[in-house]
């Protein structure tokens, strides 16, 4: 254990009346951003931070220390002890996390070391050269993070875990038309990356992008949602599957436990044990992070629920955070799904979604990075980016087919703290998807 943690624990042992949670995070990123098939910038960053929460009865106070030392801890703790007595109580507070479960720690590769910058640029050069033959440049990011966590609390928890996510995002943009298509890889195991398959996938989309560009009118369309899209809709929906949303009266699923809310082919699991995903042994409170079925054959089964909201709402605590969502695959091939559409749309990616009314799951957003017209079972034309305004629950209710395979879809979190998460999803066919306007641009 690091010297400063021993020092902190020693200080806290002098205050038996206090409860505490100490969360240590070591975070590194190695970040290559590229545009026009060349480097934009290379960034290396790191930080070691301690977050300490103190509890005295039902009073609490938290403080964060970057680059911790014994001297910084002395100063911050003295301030905290002077402050906490004067704070009002939170009557809803009961106790801190007490899950004793210790899971076998999954050792993760250090992808910052294993995928050096030279390897990244070699890979990007191959992809850039392939795209250039079709008049496309590549834009995007190639990121490796490394995160190590150590959580100690006064209820006896002493747990460590690590995460080492990789995120490669390549957008190929045509030099003249600006038509954009997207290919991504994400996970923690770079041995699963197949450069040829990745490049072939991108080139297939580039070939679609060579077709005529058209606009479509607002209206209801049969659409194929790429795995990224349905995964993102379900991520948004998962907000309403949390005890936090239930407590705020903003959950669609309020009162719907055991109710058939979606068609029987819809199953959604929060699965931190799937090696295709970016996984974590524990949640941020130190509760063991285990698989949890949220939707089983269309039936709503459970809210994700951490320590605080378990006490507040009375729901069973599971420690899940919906960070590893999986949508079960179906029994159709993508070609079969396309073949069933006389006139419709293929949507590759979504942009700037925001809830209008979270309880109703109504939101608006746009398509991005490749929207295509489907005519007589085939992708025939490129379509300008489109705006949709829909209820997510209606999208899931209108799914009539799911692809027979799923892929890992990485997402970067860019607000407050940079993080990489992932979901797993198949293509889905959705009837009557509500397009409300065209952007008139690609």
């Amino acid at each position: 254990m690091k010297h400063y943690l021993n020092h902190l624990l020693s200080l806290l042992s002098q205050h038996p009346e206090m409860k505490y949670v100490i969360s240590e995070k070591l975070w590194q990123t190695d970040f290559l951003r590229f545009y026009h098939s060349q480097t934009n910038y290379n960034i290396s960053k790191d930080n070691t931070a301690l977050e300490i929460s103190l509890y005295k009865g039902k009073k609490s106070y938290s403080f964060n220390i970057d680059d911790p030392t014994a001297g910084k801890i002395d100063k911050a703790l003295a301030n905290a002890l002077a402050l906490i007595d004067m704070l009002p109580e939170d009557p809803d507070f009961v106790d801190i996390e007490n899950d004793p479960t210790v899971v076998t720690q999954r050792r993760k590769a250090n992808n910052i070391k294993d995928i050096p910058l030279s390897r990244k640029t070699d890979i990007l050069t191959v992809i850039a050269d392939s795209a250039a033959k079709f008049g496309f440049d590549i834009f995007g990011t190639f990121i490796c993070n490394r995160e190590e966590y150590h959580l100690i609390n006064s209820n006896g928890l002493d747990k460590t875990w690590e995460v080492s996510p990789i995120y490669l995002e390549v957008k190929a943009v045509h030099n003249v038309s600006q038509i954009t298509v997207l290919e991504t890889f994400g996970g923690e195991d770079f041995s699963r990356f197949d450069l040829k398959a990745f490049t072939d996938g991108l080139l297939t989309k580039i070939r679609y992008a060579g077709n005529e560009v058209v606009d479509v009118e607002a209206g209801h369309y049969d659409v194929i949602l790429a795995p990224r899209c349905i995964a993102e809709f379900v991520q948004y929906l998962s907000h309403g599957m949390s005890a936090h949303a239930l407590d705020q009266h903003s959950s669609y699923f309020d009162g719907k436990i055991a109710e058939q809310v979606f068609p029987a082919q819809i199953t959604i699991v929060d699965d931190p044990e799937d090696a295709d995903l970016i996984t974590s042994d524990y949640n941020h409170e130190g509760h063991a992070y285990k698989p949890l079925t949220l939707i089983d054959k269309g039936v709503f089964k459970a809210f994700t629920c951490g320590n605080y909201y378990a006490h507040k709402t009375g729901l069973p605590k599971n420690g899940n955070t919906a960070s590893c969502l999986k949508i079960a695959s179906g029994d159709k091939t993508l070609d079969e799904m396309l073949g069933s559409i006389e006139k419709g749309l293929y949507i590759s990616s979504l942009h700037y979604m925001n809830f209008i009314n979270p309880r109703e799951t109504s939101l608006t957003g746009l398509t991005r990075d490749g929207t295509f017209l489907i005519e007589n079972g085939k992708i025939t034309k490129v379509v300008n980016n489109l705006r949709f305004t829909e209820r997510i629950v209606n999208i899931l209710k209108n799914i009539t087919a799911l692809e027979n395979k799923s892929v890992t879809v990485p997402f970067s979190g860019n607000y407050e703290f940079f993080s990489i998460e992932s979901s797993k999803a198949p293509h889905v066919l959705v009837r009557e998807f509500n397009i409300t306007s065209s952007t008139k641009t690609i």
Partner: protein
Amino acid sequence: MEHLIKSTLAKLSSPEITFADVRITKTDNEGIYFQNGNLRDYSSAMDSLAIGIRVLIKGCWGFSGSRDLDPAKIDRLIQQAIANARSGAQFIRNPIEFPALKASVAEYHHIPEINPFTMNKEEKVSFLGKLADTIKPQGKIVHSYVGGQFMRQEKYYINTEGSYSHTSYYNTLPIMGVIAADSGQIQSRTWPGHMSAGRAGFELFYKQQFEENTDRIIKEATDLLSAPVITEERADIIIGNGHLALQLHESVGHATEADRIFGMEISYAGKTFVKPPMLGDYQYGSEIVNIYSDSTDPRGLGYHPLDDEGVPGKRAEIIRNGILVDQQTSRHIAHMLDLEPSSNMKASFADDFPLVRMTNFCIAPGKGSLADLIAETDHGYLLDFTKTWSIDDNRNNFQFTTEIGYKIENGKITGIVKEPTYFGITKDFWNSCDRICGEEEWGYHSTFHCGKGEPGQVMQLSHGVAPARFKNINVSVKM
């Protein structure tokens, strides 16, 4: 700190390095959050140091940053930044051209009226607690919150051209909101909207009249539960300051960040419909629309004497009498566009890479009061307080929902509507602007949460706005 930053820069004098800069920030943050009348979170992060080192080698940027300022660590960061630039230069086709700039030296220190970090803490918590108690769940109010986030940042900047600045400031983000529920639906109201931050200390709570508006948000949230929706296809709308700031932010501010023209943000934030040939010619808005970027106004969060690559603060006209005339640029991008740099390169913390960011991005005032404007409107809606926002990859198609709409008939407000939603195309929308209120209604509305870049940064920035009217806007979204 001055010695540390100068000694770090001294280690970057090498013929291989054509330009380098170093930044150090020291940041204090404190957040207090009451939920449903109870103190849910009180947290702080004090004395957080960060350093960032940026070097230009063979036309490629390399950057390294850390929260550890130990001398041995800084030596490693220097080597890492250089290695990153060298490696990056292996994958580059058009090396960055970076014309030299005259050195500038600046010092600026902002002092708030009520320092949120040194004021009596019991007084601070008590004030917020009383507000929280006033709006805690009762009647149809099922959820409420009150909070404040306080930030103090001291920054040192130095570059190899001899520029140096030392600045410090205080920013505060006060928030308050309620959610009402009835028969399976919810409605919300906030005060004073989502752009409530300011360059100020605790006095912002008094200036923004939090105590005076608790009853209003409770009543309006409750009344919205039974309010009708807009039924017209199109209508004239007046947009209040609590929302116009975001309309300006999304459809003009981000659209005129020139790094988007060159695809530097395609992978995350997106592109822009603006293209270089439009400069000086493109009718972005009606003739009364004048929009500028102004990092010289100390009232806004975007004020700085030097930006994060040594460009002195500047007021740059972006749209003059409706015509697009300039962009928000970095030195590199300004050179590519044959423009003067606009002083818009900013990083959230020293260990972040600087990006083209809005500073104080403003619409110039017109004439008259909001009351006059309402009185001159036969039929329409006053929309205010952002609820939902969304705009496309090219900043061309937007859709917004505000928390509340006030129906205007024959120059008078006659009722409210819930979830008023409008959408449009950027150029058409700004060309439909026929009135902007005057100086007496103009003010800064600021945010702590403008996300851009990868690794992501959230920027604190301001918008100067006055209520404005837009004619014949599409207010019908069918779901």
